[in-house]
Structure formats: structure tokens, C-alpha cells
């Protein structure tokens, strides 16, 4: 069986230690976490975790069952084979020498992202999209000199009714 990337949307009680229970489960049982993003759902006592992981069918089945077994996990949805929207946000601080400024702004324009901070020697660009899009813009900006980046990790929601819990 081949390893496959999976993306889970996990609803958990918003209690101290929950993230540690999940992270501990993954490290203790030797599963991978490729990306992780967590935040409280507005006006509720639950949090949504979006997690990307990889493994063969057998491991993915165990991951889902083991997550369900944690007392604080309310639901686990494997979005991989479902219609879903997925986004990641990145902030990219790039060298902006006078001769490169126009080029950077052109790239920003083409990717429909925006400059959120301007300094004498840099631009900070805010960019959201799927991972491939982030990688593409970073490749284009690389020659100008990327100073540092920060990324949120993917967040995702199912396109149809699976997101009914949101906001409850």
C-alpha cells in the first residue's frame, strides 16, 4: 500500500491539553503531521483542527479510529475524497531594491495578493491560496531575495453539509 496525503477536519472540545493529546497520539504511534492549524470556533466551546497527514490505508484507518477514541474529540472528517475548499495564508517578506519594485508589484498583481507592509528595503506580501500557488509565488520571488516567511498551514472545509457544525 502506498502512502497518501490526507486532510482531516477535526472538531474538539476547547479545553487545555487537547492539542497535546492529539500531538502525543501522533508522536507516540509514529504517525506524521504534515501541517496543523487550530483555532476556536467563534462563540462555541469547540475548536476546529485542520490537519494534513500521510499514510497508507491501514494507517489512515487507525489514525481516524484513534482520534475518535480520545474523549475530547467530537468528530473527525476525512476531507480528502470529499469536495472541499482548502486555503493557506502566507506572509512573505522580500527584499525590494529599487530596480525590483515594479517587478514585485507585477507579480503581486498577477497572483491577486497584496502588499501589507512597505519598508525602505522590503515589501511584506500577504498571500492566500492552495499550497501550489504559494509555492509558485515563492519561486518567482526567490531571485529578489526572500528574507523570511510565515505560513499558517492549510485550513479546509467541506463544500456541502459537513460544515454544519461551524459556529455552533
Amino acid at each position: 500500500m502506498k502512502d497518501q496525503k490526507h486532510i482531516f477536519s477535526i472538531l474538539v472540545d476547547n479545553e487545555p491539553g487537547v492539542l497535546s493529546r492529539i500531538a502525543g497520539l501522533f508522536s507516540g504511534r509514529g504517525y506524521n503531521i504534515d501541517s496543523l492549524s487550530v483555532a476556536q470556533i467563534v462563540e462555541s466551546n469547540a475548536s476546529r483542527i485542520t490537519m494534513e497527514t500521510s499514510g497508507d490505508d491501514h494507517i489512515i484507518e487507525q489514525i481516524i479510529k484513534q482520534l475518535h477514541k480520545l474523549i475530547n474529540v467530537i468528530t473527525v472528517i476525512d476531507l480528502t475524497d470529499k469536495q472541499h475548499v482548502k486555503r493557506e495564508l502566507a506572509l512573505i517578506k522580500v527584499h525590494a531594491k529599487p530596480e525590483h519594485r515594479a517587478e514585485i508589484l507585477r507579480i503581486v498583481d498577477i497572483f491577486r495578493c497584496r502588499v501589507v507592509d512597505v519598508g525602505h528595503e522590503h515589501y511584506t506580501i500577504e498571500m492566500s491560496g492552495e499550497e501550489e500557488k504559494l509555492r509558485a509565488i515563492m519561486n518567482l520571488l526567490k531571485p529578489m531575495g526572500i528574507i523570511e516567511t510565515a505560513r499558517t498551514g492549510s485550513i479546509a472545509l467541506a463544500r456541502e453539509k459537513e460544515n454544519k457544525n461551524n459556529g455552533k
Partner: protein
Amino acid sequence: MKLTGAQILIKMIKSEGVDTIFGYPGGAVIDIYDELANHPDLRHILVRHEQGAVHSADAYARAKGDVGVSLVTSGPGATNTVTGIASAYLDSVPIVVFTGQVNSALIGNDAFQEVDIVGITRPCTKHNYLVKHVEDLARTIKEAFYIARTGRPGPVLVDLPKDVMTATIEFEEPGEIHIKSYRPTYSPNRKQLTKVVELIKQAKRPLIFAGGGVVLSKSSDEITKLAKMADIPVTASLMGLGTFPGSDPLWLGMPGMHGTYRANMSIGSCDLMIAAGVRFDDRVTGRIEKFAPNAKIVQIDIDPTSIHKNVSVDCPIVGDCKKTLALLNELLEKEDSSEVRGDRSEWLGQIDEWKSTMPLRYDQDDEIIKPQFVIETLHELTKGNAIITTEVGQNQMWTAQYYDFDKPNHFITSGGLGVMGFGLPAAIGAKAACPDKLVVDVAGDGSIQMNIQELTTSLEAGLPVKVVILNNRYLGMVRQWQDLFYNKRYSSTPMECAPDFVKLAEAYGATGMRASKPSEVRETLEKGLAAEGTVIMEFLVEREEMVYPMVPAGGAITEMLLV
């Protein structure tokens, strides 16, 4: 009614039907112990090491079929419980462990006797809690017991900061527990059960494999009924011994690394395996590809993670063993009984042949005591009615092989974690649960020394237990591996330097006895078992006796080293 945290704790523990706590006091729990003094109806058994408190609570839970409770202080008191908690976790034993914690204002400051026990025990508890507000206390305790005893049982730890124990509030009885993210599946899918009925009717060589889940769900009657009704031979894991009578002709013995020849060969040849409450541990399966290679496997378990974890299953059933087996038996009763029973003559004949050609065997001469002989004589003298606990290693395997358990809850051993030092505190816990029963700890000379201090607990609490030490002056099981696989280099396994166990027993105020010749075995056991109070019976046994059969680690279970 205004109550302190400590008062609420005791009140809630009592309301769960608990009458015994195993514990050890300390600074962080001194308020709880002060309150405990007002409750003579809640028996506190003072252990001599916190590890003992948890093993005792574990065995109490298993002998009684209810939740065991221990109470310890913060810091070292808490860390000393970890081995016991991990053992209970791997054996799915319902216990609740209360640990003291420093004042909540000090948490995180590296205060005296502070340790993050909730963090430490996260991977080895079913769930755990740090109670930060006295308002949450009653409900948390109720939840802790609920989680420990429902679904697949397991240990739950509740960490109690000192200030929460001294705080006062108006007590409110917590309501029923509903946890939306925790709803174990008890009732099986009926469609799957009709499939099982068909599988049983088609099977030529069926086999039942029972495990600890059958003990926990109290379904040994249902397993026995199924076996008899459909004429199916039964094997049971270490944790499942006693779920099916060891004296029954359909009994195969334990399978796995030290399983009987016929149990392992039956697994290799069966065409249907009905597995109930087992998790297919590596010590049972050996090499996975060669495990029951010709069988359709039906697996019944309340924990979905146990299914498809180690072996692929053809018919998974998530549900409580008792409910599931009872329903299955109901369905089978409606069928034509000759179809259900099938023609087993060839299959059972084959098993009889395996049994008669390769039985468990040892040769007892007149000179040196064989450890197996001690266990067989113990079984004969106790008529199988004693509760037997063990330590871990050869003593544990010989007990599993030679004490033919007829009843569930009579064999209490640290199966999954394999804790040396488990048996003595476990015997004390079992005696507290069943004061009218004879309780015997079968020990090795190595493992008995790991929690020997609990002899005092037994004497002080008036919980007499009998300890049988099979003394071979080796860490026998490791030596056995060194003998077979490490060119007999006995690295650190000789235990030449050991206490005089008879004098040691006497120093503790117990009775000590010793047998060094085969002719003394029966008499020593008779006297020791009949004597009042706690007794150590030391048997000087054959030093290099091996546990056979043995499947080398990673081998197929049908390829055994035999005597």
C-alpha cells in the same frame, strides 16, 4: 450544604459504591487524609509504595469486577503510580487514581513536589483531568468513574490541587453523565451477526479465541454456551484464561509464544476464528502472515481501534462481548442444531491427536524440584478455587500453562505491560476484594524483590496472602533467551546474591517456609496454604528449567521449540 473539596471528593467516591481505597499520604493530600479520618466506612489500605497502591487497586477491580481506587500525593507519589497506571491501561482495567497537586497558584513554578502528572500520564490513561476549580470537582469525579468503567475500561487519573481540596462551596449533586464526544458502541450490527451464523454453519474447522474483553464484559457464560452449542474448541489469551473451563475437553490451552502445541496448531489450521475481546498482541500472533492463514476471522470488540490493527479481519463487529455473544447464541438457537454443530469429528480428532502427541510436559525426578510440579500441586490442592496472581517471567508462563483456570476473575496478571513486582500488591488487592477467597501470588526470586515491601501492607491491613516463590537464582525468562539465542552468555541474569526468604518473611512478621526436594513440595504447600496469616513458601527449583513450547520472537506460532 457547604462542603470543602476534600469532603466532596470522599462523598463522590462513596456514591460510586467504592468501599476501599489504596493509598499513601503526603503534603498535597493531607487535607484529604484529614477528612478520610471521619469516614471509617471507607476503608483506606496504607501501602508501602505508591506503585503497590495502583497494582492493588488494579487487582481489586479485576477480582471484584468493579472500579479500583487509589490516592497518592503529588510529585514522587504521583510518578510512582505511572507503572501501575500503564499496566492497567494495557490490560483495560477500570481504576481511578487521585493524585495530589501543589496549590494551583504555584503550578508551573517548579514548586516542591510538583510534577505535571497529567502530562506524564496522558499516553497511558484512558483520560485524565486537572481540577482547577472546586465547582468542577464533583462532576469531574463522576465523569472519571463513568469513563473508567464504560466502553473499553481503563485507568483515569484526577489531579487535585491542594487549594481545591480546602476551598468551600455549596455542594450540588451532579446530574447524569452525557459526553457528546464519548459514546461507546455496545449493541452490535445484527447484519454482521447473521453473517457469523452462516460462517459457523459453513466452517469445518472453527475455533473460538477469547480474551480479556470476555472477562471484562463478564461474558464467559456466553462464550461457554457458544462453544458447547456449536461444538467449537476454545483457546484464550493470557488475559482471557478462565473464561472457558480449563477442565473441558474443548479447551485447547493458551496460544502464542508459550502456548500449547494444540492451541497453536489449531490456529494454524482453523478455517474460522471467532475472536472475542482480544487485540492480537504480538506475543499471541507471532509472525502475522502465518497467523491463522486459512481462516476467516470474526472479531468482536468494543474498541474499534482493536479491529484491523494487527490482523486483517473478515467480519468486524464493534460491540460489547456479552451483548454480541448473547445475540449470536440467540440466532444460533433458531437454526437447525445439526447444521450449527456440523461434523466436527475430523477436526476434534486432529486436535486430540495433537494433544496426545505433544502435551505440556516435564519430568519430575527425585532430586530437584521442577517449577511446573509446584504449580500443578498448587492447582490440585486449591482445586482451582484460589485467586492466583503472578509476577512476570517464567513464573507467569508456568502458572498460565499448568494451573487450569476454570473460572474468570481468578487469574490476575500484568499481561500487556509485563510488570515485575505486580503479583504481591495484586494479591493484596484481590484479597481486599474477596476476603473469603484464598489468594496466592506465584513469584520468581527476581520479581518478588521488586515490591517486597508490600508484605507490611498485607500484615497491617489484615489481608493474608500466600506467596509461592519459584527460586531458580536467575532472572529465568531472560536467562532462557540468553540460553537459546545469545550463546548462553548469562549477562546480568544470575541472582546469586539474594536474601534468605524465610528469614525475610519472619523479619516482616510473616511465616516463612522452604522446600528443596520434590518430596517436600506437597507438604510445604499444604502447610503454607492452611497456615493463618501471610506466608512465603520458597521452592528451590531446577535452575535452568525452560518454558516450553516456545515460539522464537518473530516466528510463525506453528513453528515451536518443544521439550
